[in-house]
């Protein structure tokens, strides 16, 4: 049972694979690095899908594929049921818009705020000059900034204000899907809460669909409806936020949740049940990619690659939770 099946899907990924050609040193040979492996996902209109995982798990590659910045080696991306290749970059940018992690590098320092936000409107030739001016000023107000900010430069703004501008620029062409790549991790705690509130308000107002990439599980828990957990390029668990946070199925999800440091004094540091370090993606482990770090791994785990299988508590790719239990 997929929660996603209840709504209309705006974005669909079918068996996406992405391989990079990597050179091994100056005189070394070449190797294939599989950054994304068999990823199938769909995003329904108005929902927020959170993608979590450690660095190197392929979540940013996935985001780049969705924005049309990278071509998948195999598999299909459908936007409103149409294949992504059919969209020109210009058409795609009216459907999917990104908000990046670092608002200090994602805004052109030489342009005024007004020009930064009105640029997408000019490129798409939307409305007359007067219309555009009104749209930009409305957008500035919507993201909670004073009109006077339009004549300033990014360097005169704080991190939180810059991230608001980045959000305004993404939303000014009224996209359907917004890819949020770690939108609050460069911000201070008190500002992070302001931006999360803003994202939630704007989603309701415009009926936006969010794909949110984050390593911060508490942010995902607050904003997302569903969560996809990635490990070494593959999705190991997808379920609703409540299920993932209350009853994680995959041992890796459990370890991620155990690692969260909540501000409660006296608890001490958690014991994280992960044995080895993150594997080398150029030489991934056999069978289940997580088995060398898994505390409950069985000999079978080194031989069989588990498939993402539906259970009553969400989809999970773990032999212990699916195949193995069925065999018993």
């Amino acid at each position: 049972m997929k929660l996603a099946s209840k709504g209309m899907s705006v974005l669909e990924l079918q068996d996406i694979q992405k391989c990079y050609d990597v050179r091994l040193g100056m005189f070394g040979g070449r190797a294939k690095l599989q950054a994304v492996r068999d990823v199938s996902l769909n995003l329904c209109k108005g929902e927020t899908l959170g993608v979590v995982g450690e660095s190197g798990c392929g979540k940013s590659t996935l985001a780049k594929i969705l924005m049309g910045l990278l071509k998948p080696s195999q598999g299909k991306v459908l936007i409103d049921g149409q294949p992504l290749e059919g969209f020109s970059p210009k058409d795609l940018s009216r459907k999917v818009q990104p908000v990046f992690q670092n608002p200090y590098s994602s805004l052109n320092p030489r342009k005024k705020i007004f020009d930064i936000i009105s640029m997408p409107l000019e490129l798409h030739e939307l409305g007359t000059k007067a219309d555009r001016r009104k749209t930009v000023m409305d957008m500035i107000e919507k993201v909670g900034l004073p009109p006077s900010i339009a004549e300033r430069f990014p360097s005169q703004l704080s991190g939180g204000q810059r991230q608001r501008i980045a959000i305004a620029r993404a939303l000014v062409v009224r996209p359907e899907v917004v890819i949020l790549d770690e939108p609050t991790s460069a911000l201070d705690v008190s500002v992070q809460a302001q931006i999360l509130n803003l994202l939630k308000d704007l989603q309701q107002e415009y009926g936006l669909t969010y794909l949110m990439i984050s390593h911060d599980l508490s942010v995902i828990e607050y904003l997302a409806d569903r969560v996809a957990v990635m490990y070494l390029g593959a999705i190991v668990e997808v379920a609703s936020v409540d299920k993932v946070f209350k009853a994680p199925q995959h041992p890796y999800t459990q370890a991620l949740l155990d690692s969260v440091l909540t501000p409660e004094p006296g608890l001490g540091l958690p014991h994280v049940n992960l044995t080895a370090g993150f594997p080398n993606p150029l030489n991934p482990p056999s069978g289940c990619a997580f088995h060398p770090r898994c505390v409950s791994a069985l000999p079978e785990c080194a031989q069989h690659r588990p498939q993402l299988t539906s259970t009553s508590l969400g989809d999970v790719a773990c032999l212990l939770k699916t195949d193995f239990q069925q065999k018993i």
Partner: protein
Amino acid sequence: MTSLLSIQGLQVDIATPGGTLQAVKNLNLDVQRGETHCIVGESGCGKSITALAMIGLLPEKARITAGSILFEQQNLACLNEAGLSNLRGNRMAMIFQEPMTCLNPTLTIGTQLTEGFLRHGKGNRKAAYERAIMLLEKVGISAADKRFHQYPYSLSGGLRQRVMIAMALMCEPDLIIADEPTTALDVTVQAQILATLSELKSEMGLSLIVITHDLGVVARIADNVTVMYAGEAVETGTVSQVFGNPGHPYTVGLQKSVVGSADRDSQRLSVIPGRVPSLVGGLTGCRFRNRCPHAIPKCAEADIDMSELEADHTYRCLRNVSAGRPEMTGGVL
């Protein structure tokens, strides 16, 4: 017992084109032997400048204009460069935030690990090698003898941060200052690195100053906490005092801003409205008053002194002096 490190009335000014910026104002801080002291605050609150002042690595434009930093009775604020460099890496060491950029990419891990040990005359090359291998193993790096000869690029972020910790421990320092030691790392690695740091601290009897913006890190590792806002310490006490019975409205606001499980059901997160004031030019009165829900006209009149809330727990606020503190309990900021 005298403190290992005692900062009294520290003031650091930074020259900017717009005038003098008071980055740290009248800071008092005591760190005992074996203590973990966390300095917490948001960007621009002066926490990193305080760390750099302690270890004598302030940027050129920044100057200590008042106060003293006593490290084992020696005032670091008036020590010359030679004196400081005898202490740095030797008696006190620093771990920086970005393990990706603070190792020299052109030198092997081993060269960088042993450099300080040899420079401070702690022993010969053989002793340095042995100590480096011992420490690499201690911080949880497998195949240490192989890693010793590798360059930083072949190590992941977590491993590099472990190398940084091993490097800080080379000369058996008394004090380690860690500036956001786990901010750049994954959550799973963060818990492991902090556990390693805490274990080594108790094993070697070090004192640890951890600078962070993450209240989760503070809650789990600190003995004592200093909360900084706009260059001033606004609250200091033991970790259970500051988290359990916060005295300053900023501490309360910071705690409420942390996204937690309970927020899932509420539509809105509580926020601290407004932004940090500019620290250029003289500021009088409470620096938090423009964002404070409890501010009164008196807050603007004069600088506010630290007052005692309970034993070892002080805060810089005119309000909520009574134990009941009715104005602090209600409402979202």
